[in-house]
């Protein structure tokens, strides 16, 4: 039995008074890839961002319910968001390299965490780039700008930058939506390799991608919220991916994954 990394119970996320997502109760298991799927506005990205307290950076956003990381309530008043984020890395929808050299991009996190020695940084940068299957492509131009890389390479560099802080969890928010099928395949392969070292949670609006990469899938949808009378997201079903795609339990899931969009 795998260790539970995240334990969400009755999580709701508000933007001001608007309840963007509700009824989120799910576990994320260690060394697995968990995928969040669902239509636009179902709140899957909001839930992902709740896992490393990225909502702190948005005025008016609020997380209710219990979000536990290895038993610790992430939203307890004395928990530091920056400390949380150093344990829980995040990769974004569009590759977002800093306009710095490849080396400085990857070394950014370790430097923030206090690693100053050039020798140590060299080792971390190489290890991270190898981990992101990018080392061979960039080892000769570590000092050139990261913006000169192709889209797929940039995204892999962002993954390297994230794993350079040695997080335990890597959150990914539609990491391939800006990439072509070949770059996507490489990122997906990388994810499968990374799961031996990290726990991965990925948001994707590409159902096939969830089917291809994930071990567990959580399906969200958007419905009329009985309390606020606006459309809001909610969690419908979580299950093993192979089972979700061959034999989902909830009819809403079945309708969505088979392409019955009403």
């Amino acid at each position, binding site marked *: 039995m795998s260790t539970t990394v995240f334990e969400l119970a009755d999580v709701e996320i508000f933007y001001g008074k608007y309840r963007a997502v509700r009824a989120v109760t799910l576990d994320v298991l260690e060394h697995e890839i968990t995928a969040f799927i669902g239509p636009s506005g179902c709140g899957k990205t909001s839930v992902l961002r709740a896992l490393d307290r990225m909502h702190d950076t948005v005025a008016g956003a609020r997380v209710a319910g219990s979000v536990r990381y*290895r038993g610790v309530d992430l939203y307890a008043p004395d928990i*530091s968001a920056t400390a949380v984020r150093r344990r829980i890395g995040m990769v974004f929808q569009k590759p977002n390299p800093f306009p710095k050299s490849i080396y400085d991009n990857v070394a950014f996190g370790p430097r923030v965490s206090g690693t100053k020695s050039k020798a140590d940084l060299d080792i971390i940068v190489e290890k991270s780039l190898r981990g992101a299957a990018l080392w061979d492509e960039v080892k000769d131009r570590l000092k050139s700008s990261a913006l000169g890389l192709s889209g797929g390479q940039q995204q892999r560099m962002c993954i390297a930058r994230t794993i350079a802080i040695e997080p335990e969890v890597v959150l990914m928010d539609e990491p391939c939506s800006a990439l072509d099928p070949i770059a996507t395949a490489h990122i997906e392969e990388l994810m499968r390799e990374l799961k031996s070292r990290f726990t991965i949670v990925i948001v994707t609006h590409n159902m096939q991608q969830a089917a291809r990469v994930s071990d567990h899938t959580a399906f969200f949808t958007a419905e009329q919220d009985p309390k606020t009378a606006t459309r809001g997201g909610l969690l419908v079903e979580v299950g093993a991916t192979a089972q979700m795609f061959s034999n989902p339990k909830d009819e809403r899931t079945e309708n969505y994954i088979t392409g019955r969009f009403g």
Partner: protein
Amino acid sequence: MSSSANLAVELRTRKRSADAAFGWVARGSAAFVLLVLAAIALTMTARSAPVLSAMGLDFFTSTQWSPPEKVYGALPFVFGTLFTASIAIAFAVPVSIGVALFITQVAPPRVRRYMIYAIDLLAAVPSVVFGLWGVLVLSRDFGLGRSFLTAGIILAVMITPIITSLSREVMETTPQADKEAAIALGATRWEMIKATVLPHSTGGLVGAVMLGLGRALGETIAAALVIGSALGQITTNPLAAGNSMPAVIANEWGEAGTLHKSALIALAMTLFVITILVNLIANAIVARAQRRMRGA
């Protein structure tokens, strides 16, 4: 792997005083703007009080400006300022937009690059240089004399690169996709410009024009050199010599007495208020155009 208790300790908040301090320094810097503006408003109001209490509302309505008689009526200068600025805008705006359209929509890439450089450089030419050229070449060598028209032309030449440069920047932000949509629907170049570039740029163009107008209104030196320094002229004849608020201040400050200085400060105050109004209107127009662009 640390136990849950250890983990909780590790994730605990550490005080981040440096973070907070940086935020307050930034806030203080921003507040400086308010401080300076308040100081300007207070100082100017206090210093213009003597002439305003002496003249009352006549200061704004009287056409008589006679320091020796201690009569200060600002109306001719207000008129002169608005008249020259209008002439300048009338010349500069169509030309600027035409040039900006040429640069962004017509010129081949190489020509475009050089024209952009040229316009940006011209926008940086100090106004006093235009004034110099105006007084020594346009009014003397070309015999145009010192008049509203001369000042208007000099101001127009001065603000055209500025308006062009801003307009070009705004027009360049028209999404290529929008332009292609129009082209793909069978539109000619001009139809495409009318459908996409102009609507998209409306807000920015108004902003650019208003900025140009603000410059024209507040421009002291070029106007002071070529407008003619006539006192009390209210005429729509563009070839007549006239005067404008900034020119009067610049030309008379040196030899002014206490009440005269107060009158000049009140004149500056008036100019200040007019430019603020122009800016407010410009802001409102730009904001409305942006709201419309966002589709609210």
